[in-house]
């Protein structure tokens, strides 16, 4: 794909993150530079502790770097403060985690409505749930849904606000392959139909085939970036 024709969503410059764990200092990121583009599907691959999650947390406004800058559409996220980071998450970012983190006391529809009620231009909860193929089970509580269904509710909840970026940390980590494929299908569809920049962290190398770009992490640095000429469909992937 022609990356030059796309607009830059994130510009990451010299990003460093050091966790102070008492006597030991853990350097989770050691100077990362990367640009991410509107609408692309990015997969982050790498061993545990290589810095993928730290990068995604900083991109999502959940954490702040020790050094360096992150620009989102030209605005430096490292300078905006906690209140504006909350607003940034509210208006621009969707998250999907390994453990779905649904609100157990709300039905699928209500879990999504929680977000649509505070968003300026959301999908309806029904639309969001239909997008992930859950139109039928909208009045079920999380405890009444399977793991894959719960994760799809989480995706619907993340995309219902029409986010500019969808950040997914091990979205299929807790799922078997069949369910995992359904979830990936949902992610792929959101990326395609809504044009959302989608960043997926995974341990599962097979998923790299879905991406426009695959960014490899090792030891807090980007070790390699691959471009996929041809993206596969989730149903074509096997692991």
């Amino acid at each position, binding site marked *: 794909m022609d990356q030059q024709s796309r607009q830059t969503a994130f510009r990451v410059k010299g990003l460093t993150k050091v966790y102070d764990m008492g006597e030991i200092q853990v350097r989770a990121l050691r100077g990362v530079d990367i640009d991410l583009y509107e609408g692309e599907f990015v997969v982050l691959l790498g061993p545990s502790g290589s810095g993928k999650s730290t990068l995604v947390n900083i991109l999502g406004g959940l954490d702040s770097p020790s050094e360096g800058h992150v620009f989102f559409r030209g605005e430096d996220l490292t300078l905006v403060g906690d209140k504006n980071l909350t607003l940034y998450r509210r208006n621009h970012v969707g998250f999907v985690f390994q453990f779905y983190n649904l609100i157990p006391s709300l039905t699928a529809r209500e879990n999504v409505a929680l977000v649509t009620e*505070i968003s300026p231009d959301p999908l309806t909860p029904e639309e969001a749930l239909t997008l992930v193929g859950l139109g039928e089970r909208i009045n079920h509580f999380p405890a009444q849904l399977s793991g894959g269904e719960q994760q799809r509710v989480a995706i619907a909840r993340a995309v219902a606000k029409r986010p500019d970026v969808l950040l997914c940390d091990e979205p299929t980590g807790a799922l078997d392959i069949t369910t995992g494929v359904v979830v990936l299908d949902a992610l792929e569809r959101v990326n395609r139909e809504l044009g959302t920049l989608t960043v997926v962290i995974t341990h599962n190398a097979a998923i790299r085939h879905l991406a426009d770009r695959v960014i490899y992490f090792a030891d807090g640095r980007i070790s390699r970036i691959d471009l996929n000429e041809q993206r596969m469909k989730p149903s074509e992937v096997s692991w």
Partner: protein
Amino acid sequence: MGSQVIAIGLVMGAGIATFVMSTGLIDSLGETRRLYYEEFRFGDVFVDVKRAPEGLARRLAEIPGVRRVETRVTVGATLDVPGMREPATGLLVSLPEGRQPELNGLYLRAGRLVEPYRENEVVIGDAFAEAQELGPGDRISALISGHRRELEIVGVAISPEFVYAVPPGALFPDNKRFAVMWMGRDALEAAHDMDGAFNDAVLSLMPGASEPDVIEAVDALSRRFGGQGAYGREDHTSDMFLRSELDQLAVMAIVLPVIFLVVASFLLHTVLSRLISLDREEIGTLKALGLTDREVAWHYAKFAAAIAALAAVTGISAGAWFGHAMAGMYAEFYRFPALHYELAPWVLATSLSLAFGIALLGALQAIRRVMRLRPAEAMRPEPQPVYRPLLLERLGVAQALSPAARMILRHLERRWRRSILTCLGIATALGTLIASSFFLDTIDFMLDVQFNRAEREDVALALIEPQSLRALDDIRHMPGVMRAEPYRAVPVKLRLENRTRRLAVLGMRPGGDLHRALDRRQHPVSLPPDGILLSDMLARLLGARPGDVLTVEVLEGRRPVRQVRVTGIAEQYVGTAAYMDMDALNRLILEGPSISGAWLKVDGAAAGTFYDAVKRTPAIAGLSIRAAAISGFNETLAENLIRMTLTNIAFASIIAFGVVYNSARISVSERGRELASMRVLGFTRGEISAILLGELAILVLFALPLGMVIGYGIAAVVVESLQTELFKLPLVLKPATYGWTALVVVGAATVSALVVRRRLDRLDLVAVLKTRE
């Protein structure tokens, strides 16, 4: 967890403290009273006569069961205290020449007893001595039976018959204006024209003697000497007050500790249950590694035991401290040689067992759960909580609720047992506060009724002897008197079936404006032209209803026995009373128009000259001054009531804080993950706090009306248990009291909620979301 341990420890500690304080006080007060009565030979039966020769004493001593008889002369006096404008009232009691009385002995605080045959020497009561800063060597001027005497104070003393000394007919002590004094028998006989005679006898009984039989015999013997009816300790004013105090303490010793301990037990239960849910996997692992059920359970039992130990230590020391403070306060009202708060070993032992027993009770269910948990099952995570739509939603209402509101309500509904108990806990805090504050309203109300509606006279003037109506003219012509309404008081024994009461019937003129009998709505009751009006407590004691016919045995003058119909019931909160039309009363006792005194309206500007005139008038036995009674109350009781109320506010706040704090902490623990998710989704700190605090707000909101009902209920029970012949406490709760007590509880809840909210601000979003529930 540490702060929760402290919160529960405080609630439990407050329970232990109230128990230690009140049982310790009951013990100390009861034991002090017993020793004092025994050592200073407090009498068992008392009788006033008009005038009896010493020969009667010998015959009284011959009554089977009587051990000793002490005869005395008692006289009322008007005192002129230096530096005080209004006259004080004195009660002079004779002392045998040169020795302690055989009964009702004196405990000397300072100085000495009266020397034999020194006619101007007196020993004065210590309450009056303290209030007026008088002591041995000081002098005081008294008008005794029409004669002015300069008295020299030689000693300061107390006596078991005046442990609680209130002016005649009053509710609260007035130490500045009421003095008990002891004087040589000879001097008092001479002053009161009682040579070789007495007007007051005290009897002690042999063990096992029948008091009613002795009283009957005494009455039979004393009747012809103007006997006013003998009575036992049960009807002795001082002992009656003391007993009613002990009764109050006994109620307090049960009600408050029970409330606190039950709440503490519930809190411990919820905290331990949550702790065990959190530790589930560790419990499984420890068991899998080979620890026995008991060993694991012991770990949690220790947690409960630590709280119990904390509560026992703080509760016992705080209780002992409060006990000392209360004993100091009691010493102002109840005059004992020494009143020390002592912590009896049994109180200590009971407090310890209460603390550990309650802790065990609270921990029991949680520990059982630990014992039952199988390792394999425990190591699996707890199944996801199952929620359902709200009952309201299933019924088709509440469709318009926002998701956040649904989160709050469904959580409350799913944990309905805990929600109800938490709500009850908060309600209990409010209830206790209301129940311990209603006294303020009640006393306020009683004072208002007493002084603004019933007894509106500035001064009640009592004559030494009943006099003809001419005396009323003399009174009207005293300087400063603007209005005078006469009364006649006649000592009688009222009888209905086998129930009898002794008291003075008050004869009044119909339509009087100063002193009135009131009905239930505090409107004046018009006096029937004949027949008798009873105060409700008196009616209750006699079992009398309107229309019943009482036997009235007059205890003075020609002592006729007559039948009188009860024509109505009057509401009265202090003491018992019977009212009649004055003319009807005079006819009943077979006398012409006569008065015992008058109620007066006095010109404030001329009060000084009025008081001077009273001090010079021999025929006047004494005054009760309304303003003095009110200020006497404010000086003594009001301050203590405020102190008590502040203590109660502290106690209730402890409960409210403890319950709300624990509830909030458990919610944070249970819902931290949800709330963190919401932060990630873009909800602000304020928005997620609203969910947590909204839940608490709903619980508090429901708790408020419930607490008001509970408070009213407890107050009603307390009021009912404190009804004595001395006071009929009305249950009065002003809207303002509901208001401020609710504010205290809401305040305590808000503080604890804000403390917990600070934890929400520190939620580690990433860490919460990366772990599996």
